[in-house]
């Protein structure tokens, strides 16, 4: 094995990158983008009694750090803390340092609602960064609307939602699905699709959109099978045999959690060669590959908006900064990057609005652009989702993706897509 060689290489490589970052840091700190010469008066920026003082502003982080979802949400917490510490070191928001109150949703939806209420009512948080699953978001949504809070939600999700009190920094379903299907149809000439998913709202809604797109918008294409498995299912041999019989051009897989690992291991064990069989997924980020093992999924395509290997100046600063804070071995998936956007977008919005008031933040959000996003440029749409590019990556043996396609323009978020419901 060339494992030693490989790690030696990345070490020296990242040291070089660290040096670059260190060299770039002073330059960043004098950029005029952030920091006010004199902080505006508290009475002016906070008319609704939020936790804002002359030199600090309090925000909440609400993710699961215990329970089944801890596996996924840890990365988001790390990214949000990184973003906040960077903003603080560059002068904070409206001249105020950000203080964090972190609560644990414990993978339990009522707990999420309870903690959200605590963050808004007791702690008067000016913004909350949190939630991961749609179930937790649905649980806290009424709380945020009732007590008028602001939630920055990082996960790609099924759409069909829009709220004054939420900024969705992940993709809604059409942003993640349509461009990927178009790409596979155009470059691989794929005509037949087999849709797979875990059995809950996100995969089902996503596959519904995928099916409509395949049947109505791609000429000569059809869906030859659609199958769902309970969350946590670990046996996929039967469906793999079914696919061997049907021989679809593309396996379209939206399987999540522990099932993911079982599915790809069994796919490989059944002799399905991903260098010949096209497999497109929207649920496997670099985080999931850690558990699946690069050798089991190499060759598969994933449709995301961010990959850790993305080659742009922002990402070249972001990845080393993340690893410096959270360890050399950490990987950054799509959602982790989207979580990083939250605090940054909030900071930019607050400075645009010149206020922390929730109503002014909500009103000022559309049109806010973040040029320093690791995924490239993003902008908030009137519907509180983000304009962003869709990309396709191909899994490598080392658990990273090679980016092989990206849309030429930003894709418009469309949480209530007509003709897809």
């Amino acid at each position: 094995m060339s494992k030693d060689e490989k790690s030696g290489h990345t070490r020296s490589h990242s040291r070089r990158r660290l040096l670059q970052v260190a060299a770039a840091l002073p330059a960043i700190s004098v950029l005029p983008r952030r920091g006010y010469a004199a902080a505006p008066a508290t009475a002016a920026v906070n008319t609704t009694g939020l936790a804002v003082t002359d030199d600090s502003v309090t925000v909440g982080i609400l993710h699961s750090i215990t329970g089944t979802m801890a596996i996924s949400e840890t990365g988001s917490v790390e990214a949000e803390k990184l973003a906040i510490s960077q903003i603080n070191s560059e002068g904070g928001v409206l001249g105020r340092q950000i203080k964090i109150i972190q609560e644990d949703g414990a993978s339990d939806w009522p707990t999420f609602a309870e903690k959200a209420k605590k963050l808004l009512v007791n702690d008067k948080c000016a913004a909350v960064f949190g939630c991961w699953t749609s179930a937790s978001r649905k649980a806290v949504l009424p709380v945020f609307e009732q007590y008028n809070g602001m939630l920055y939600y990082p996960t790609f999700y099924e759409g069909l939602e829009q709220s004054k009190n939420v900024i969705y920094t992940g993709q809604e379903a059409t942003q993640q699905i349509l461009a990927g299907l178009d790409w596979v149809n155009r470059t691989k000439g794929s005509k037949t699709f087999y849709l797979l998913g875990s059995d809950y709202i996100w995969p089902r809604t996503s596959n519904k959109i995928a099916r409509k797109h395949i049947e109505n918008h791609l000429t000569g294409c059809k869906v030859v099978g659609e199958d769902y498995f309970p969350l946590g299912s670990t046996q996929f041999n039967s469906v793999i045999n079914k696919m061997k019989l049907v021989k679809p051009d593309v396996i379209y897989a939206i399987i999540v959690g522990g099932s993911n690992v079982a599915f790809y291991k069994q796919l490989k064990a059944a002799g399905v060669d991903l260098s010949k069989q096209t497999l497109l997924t929207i649920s496997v980020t670099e985080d999931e590959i850690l558990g699946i093992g690069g050798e089991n999924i190499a060759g598969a395509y994933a449709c995301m908006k961010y990959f850790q290997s993305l080659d742009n100046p922002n990402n070249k600063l972001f990845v080393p900064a993340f690893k410096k804070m959270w360890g050399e071995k950490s990987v950054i998936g799509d959602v982790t990057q989207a979580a990083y956007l939250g605090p940054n977008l909030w900071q930019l919005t607050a400075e645009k609005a010149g206020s922390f008031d929730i109503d002014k933040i909500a009103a000022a959000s559309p049109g806010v652009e973040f040029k320093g996003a690791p995924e490239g440029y993003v902008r908030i749409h009137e519907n509180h989702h983000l304009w962003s590019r869709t990309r396709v990556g191909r899994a490598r043996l080392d658990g990273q993706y090679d980016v092989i396609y990206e849309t030429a323009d930003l894709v418009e978020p469309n949480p209530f897509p007509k003709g897809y419901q």
Partner: protein
Amino acid sequence: MLMGYSFGDLGSIMAMQGFAGLSLFSVFVLMALGLAIIFGQMGVINMAHGEFMILGAYVTYLTSLTFTNYLPSLFSIYFFVAVTLAFCASGALGMLVEWALIRQLYRRPLDTLLATWGLSLILQQVYRSVFGAREVGVDQPDWMMGATNLSDTIQIPINGLIVMALTAVISIFVYLLIYRMKWGRQVRAVMSNRAMAGAVGIDTEKVDRYTFGIGCGIAGVAGSAFTMIGSTSPTAGQLYIVDTFLIVVFGGAQSLIGTIASAFTISQARSILEFFLSGSMAQVLVLLTVVGILMLRPQGLFVLKIRR
């Protein structure tokens, strides 16, 4: 579904599907044997069974790391070492748990349910603190991954074959232990009448401890084997626990033959239904059928006839 496919294709698929059913059968037997021993022979409802399996999986993970770093030349056979270590680790932890917790509760079977459930939460958090909340990837030697081609169109997963072999070995071992050896007779004697077994000179405490240890050890072996087909994370044990209890209860709690028969029935039913229906639908139908049968026959498929 038969339309438009050649007979050759269909034949191959049927062969592979038959194998898929058998491999699911071995997975189920491997999961359920340890629980059947503990639940059936001792009457203890061990909710932490899944966590004992995951301990085996983590031991396998550690063994693979050790071999990668210190004995790379022997990596191709590390799995057999890992299985043995997994058995020892889970067995030892089982004996410790029996000594510290379970033996206080033999007369209160429902309390063992709560106590072991608490234990499972504790173990999950321990795994999370030690190994991190994320899944770990367990490297397998190349010869264990992939498929072997029986013909051009029939591919048989190698890890399925390994699980089947392991299951056969463990089942024979358990059968000999319980039904052909002196120790097994003592276990069965303690199970039918604890006071009388003690009166004729059987050290019932020792028997209990070893029975629990062996049950947990087998769970560890199962966990070790499942690193080939599933995920290794602090909460992965929860994925298996429902199926495991289903099989043991359906088979009749006190009968090992019943466990095997019920694993066979459920695995074949599910594997065939999954082929023709969706995965979720197949599980729903299987569960409904099992519930229906258990309503008519609450004692399960097989029962021991003993005087109460």
